[in-house]
């Protein structure tokens, strides 16, 4: 059970990391962020604040 929790957590982190990397690449190319991009950034900042 604990192992599957850990696996879910790792999967979540990986997806978030991949999305944030894609957003960062967009910003480097001076592209405009979408609503979804901003929602992901919001999610990331909330998780960061929660530690």
């Amino acid at each position, binding site marked *: 059970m604990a192992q599957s*929790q850990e696996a*879910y*957590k790792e*999967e*979540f982190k990986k*997806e*978030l990391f991949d*999305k944030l990397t894609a*957003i960062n690449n967009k*910003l480097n190319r*001076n592209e*405009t*962020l979408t*609503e*979804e991009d*901003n*929602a*992901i*950034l*919001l*999610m990331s*900042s*909330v*998780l*960061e*604040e*929660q530690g």
Partner: protein
Amino acid sequence: MNAKVIDDHSPETANKEIAILQITRIGDILQTCHAVRLLKINHPEYNVTLIARKQFAEPVKFLIDQIFDDVKIIDFKRSINLADGFSGSLKNIKNILKDINTKKFSASINLSFSKSSSYLHSMINSDHKIGPYYNEANHKVIHDKWSQYLFSSVMRGDLNPFNLVDLFSNIIGVKKDNTHLTNSNFSKEKKENILLHPFASLEKKYWKSNKWSEVILRVLEANKDITIHIAGSSSDKDGYEQIVNVPILEKYRSRIKPLLGKSLSELYAQVDNTYLFVGHDSMIGNLLSFKNIKTITISLGTVRPMETAPYSINNYILSPKTKCYPCFPDTPCEFYKCHGDIPYQVLQEVISQLLISNKVEKEQFLKRVSPFHMNSVNISKTTVNKVGHLTLSNVLDEYQTERDVFRDFYRTIWSYAFSEVDVTSPLPNISEATASSLSKQAQTVVHLFELAEFGKKYSRYILEEISKKAPEINKIKDYSKKIDEVDRLLDVLVEANELIAPIVDYGVVAKSNLSGNNLVSLTESSFYVYQEMSNAASIIHEFLTKLNLTNTNQQTPRKSL
């Protein structure tokens, strides 16, 4: 209160929708409630929606519902979770935003100043955004001056002269013709109960248990009819036991009642006009300010009394005169000297006087408390000035410090610069030593003025060069380098002279939020920032001159006024 009555339905007077974003803690929500209460009194035509986090809003929802027209509660913990996974969590976030955006807001105002609040703010549909948000290039932007000021000053030092409620009101743009601050007391003259909250969020901010045990003993000994109720959360049980289960309080146990784990609505309902509140800086004091309960706040550690004083008049604050007070959460400290600088004897006397008469009389205080105990503590009372700002006045009419004097200067400067509101302060009551120290500041202020003028000069040179038929890029680059040099010199000036930090800090934030999207408009707004800094320096110099503190040849500093 004399609210304006709106009796026609033209577009100018149609109900305006405002969203207030406050996703930080309960204390901030309570201060926001006070600010919106002021807004609704002075501008009843506005419909105001609060956007807040569930864990902080729910405990005070009973109060929020009285003040706001609508509330959007966000449960981030439930929305972002492993069970729903990344895609599910993202969908939940989008649903939250969809719900918030069912209304079209005329203005959204972010009073939270956190990264997450700035992202949330950028996704709210509103015609105008006040406070921080992220723009399309993912840069944090703060357009309005009061928010820029709040970001620059409150986050760094204790030279801010405004209570947070007044700052929030200024950000919102409340025209304070009317205020709910009142001299009327809810607490009876002779009280039967003390509500004590001896806990706080950080160890730096509250006394050790033995000191509270001593206070409780003295108060119960001297006041035979008083019952002390100790409030706290369920997790404060150990702290409660440490305070109460001591031999010296053995015979007074029946007069000490625990109120641990009660909801805030229950506590609020229970506290009536037979109560005096005594506690450290916490949201309970702020909560009870809505009922105008008489309070004593013991401010320690990181607490800045002016900013977080409960927003009502004629309440009392004890703060230490310790040199390092107030500090920051991450400032290392082993001894908590500020804790010892407020003797329990001072608190005991303040409590005694308030239990009986709702006020602290200076003469009686001086008779009954030794000067030895009073040397290291400030006793302040909350008052209101002519423009409706909460202020602190020294109960014992002691001399003001350099920092007190500069705070008064800044209250006048920022109120006029950002809101064109004239705030007058009485002439400061200062000692010879403070006068001498202030006279040395005059030279610093002159340097600040000169640097700001250089900033203006090179900004103007850039504009002049751009306006030529064939502008030289190298010249523009050189002038930009000069401006960078000015900014570096300003940083050096602040290192040595902390009292002028608010002006330079504000300049830094304002310059990082310049309006315009081309070199001309950016340079113009840079010019205006230096203009504001130059004006601020000039005003301080004028104040010091009026106090006869700018004569560098003067051998003896001016005596106290």
